[in-house]
């Protein structure tokens, strides 16, 4: 046990050292210079990036959550596999192909990018929400019914709170994925930090590449932490523990 801990700590320290070393190296070589020299452009790109992620995620939540609720009701539960498979299928199509297909329908620019990202977010959100609702012990629902709770009361006071942690888990996965995938929006004129990343790749210009890539990474990590915090606030300690064990198995 202690040995494992020691190894874990060594790995962690090495990793931190590497990250810090990288930042120093990048700073010394002026790889962050585009951020300081073109600060206005930088913020525009960050804004575009966030817009892409937020809009697509909100759309995905609006579509995926009601579907998850619908397919976990007793009457529709038997059709859940169909919905899951459709969502799975959407996930297996390569991101660039989705972008290309989206152009065909929505033209170039911001809209098809949002659409493509939306397609990618639906599955993790739907899957996790379904898992969250399904992980609720049927005895709880039976107890609720037996005590005279109405169906809506059982849903809001028992099912939603106990599934909340898993639902937010799906949201986290979707958003982190989206922050990364949104960099590809550049290819169809969707904007975002992908503009600098792809420019950097095409021109072999490390400064642009790193000035685009590092903020994307930080954005993903930051949003993940934020949502994790939200998960703990929204669902009480005990509920998040049970949800954790339910989704991890």
């Amino acid at each position, binding site marked *: 046990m202690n040995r494992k801990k020691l190894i874990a700590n060594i790995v962690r320290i090495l990793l931190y050292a590497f990250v810090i070393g990288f930042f120093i190296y990048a700073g010394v070589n002026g790889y962050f210079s585009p951020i300081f020299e073109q600060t206005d452009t930088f913020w525009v790109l960050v804004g575009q990036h966030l817009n892409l992620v937020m809009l697509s995620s909100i759309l995905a939540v609006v579509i995926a959550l009601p579907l998850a609720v619908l397919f976990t009701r007793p009457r529709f539960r038997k059709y859940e596999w169909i919905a899951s498979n459709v969502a799975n299928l959407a996930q297996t199509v390569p991101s660039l192909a989705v972008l290309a297909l989206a152009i065909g329908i929505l033209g170039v620019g911001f809209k098809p990018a949002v659409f493509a990202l939306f397609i990618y977010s639906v599955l993790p959100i739907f899957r996790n929400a379904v898992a969250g609702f399904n992980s609720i*012990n049927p*005895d*709880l629902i*039976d*107890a*609720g*019914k*037996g*005590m*005279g*709770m*109405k169906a809506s*009361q059982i849903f809001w*006071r*028992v099912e939603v*709170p*106990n599934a909340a942690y898993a639902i937010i888990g799906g949201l986290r996965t979707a958003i982190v994925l989206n922050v990364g995938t949104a960099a590809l929006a550049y290819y169809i004129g969707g904007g975002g930090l992908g503009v600098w990343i792809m420019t950097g790749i095409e021109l072999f210009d490390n400064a642009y590449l790193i000035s685009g890539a590092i903020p994307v990474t930080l954005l993903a990590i930051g949003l993940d932490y934020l949502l994790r915090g939200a998960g703990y606030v929204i*669902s*009480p*300690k*005990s*509920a998040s*523990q*049970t949800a954790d064990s339910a989704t991890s198995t």
Partner: protein
Amino acid sequence: MISFKHVSKSYTGTEKAVNDVNFEVEKGEIVIFLGPSGCGKTTLLRMVNRLETISEGSVLINGEDIGNLNEIELRRNIGYVIQSNGLFPNMDIEENVTIVPDLLGWDKKKKHNRYKELMQLIGLDPMEYRKRFPNELSGGQQQRIGVIRALAADPPVMLMDEPFGALDPLIREKIQDEFLQIQREVKKTILFVSHDIDEAIKMADKIVLMRDGEIMQYGTPSDILIHPKNEYVSQFIGRDRAIKHLSLRTIAQLQEEIGLVEIDQSIVDSKQVNIHENLKDTLAMLLNQEADQVIVHDDNDEVQGAITIDRVQRYLHLEMRQKPSQTVEKEKVME
């Protein structure tokens, strides 16, 4: 109080989970539905708060057919306890306990007072547990919370589906005693599902013994032990039914019937026992060779006499012979 009238339940056409069940439950009694798994006892119980539909016949509470009542209202007026306690993990203990009062729209203060009252009933500190969550409690504590949650809105009727079945024997015994104590105070009409004959003998005022959806016998524990109606009943309650029956009788009752014996002063090592101790435990004491005689005290600590194995045996013979039944005689013939 509660009447079952020709109650049947069929899932698929011909097969009946519950078949033409008829009986009455008196107010303030604990009636235990006893039988092996799949005998329909849980289905029968869940019909009372309409978690199961009734295919034929009717269940009446205070003369009113429950089929005519609003489902939600009906359930809020019936306490419901299940084996896995069914506490909501997202709510703290106080919220869990006061959920039915909350559904009924009680105000905050009334709910809180009721919470404190109920926690005191099971000897848990209301303030200490208030903000704790169910998974921070032991299994026994969770089950007790489950019981008081069902009592929260003071319903006249309680349904309990193997409420103590998941607990280990020591804790189960303790909670059974505690529950009987509570019942003496609250005097609810309780329908209780169990597959444990000892639990039924200990807790029940009456037992409904079931098999394949039909009632095999309905009567007091003593009645069922002394006069099992048929082969199935005597098989289910076991060959030691006479000994089991002793757990329903106290030394005081033996004294009344046949009297105690003189204390044999030559025996040095004798145990002391209260006169209200049941005869089964007394016999166990004697058989464990803890003593050849047990000296009996009454509540004022005055010595009443002594009891020996012979005495218990004589009482038992008398009990079994005094109230002869067909099955008992048949067994004798077979011997």
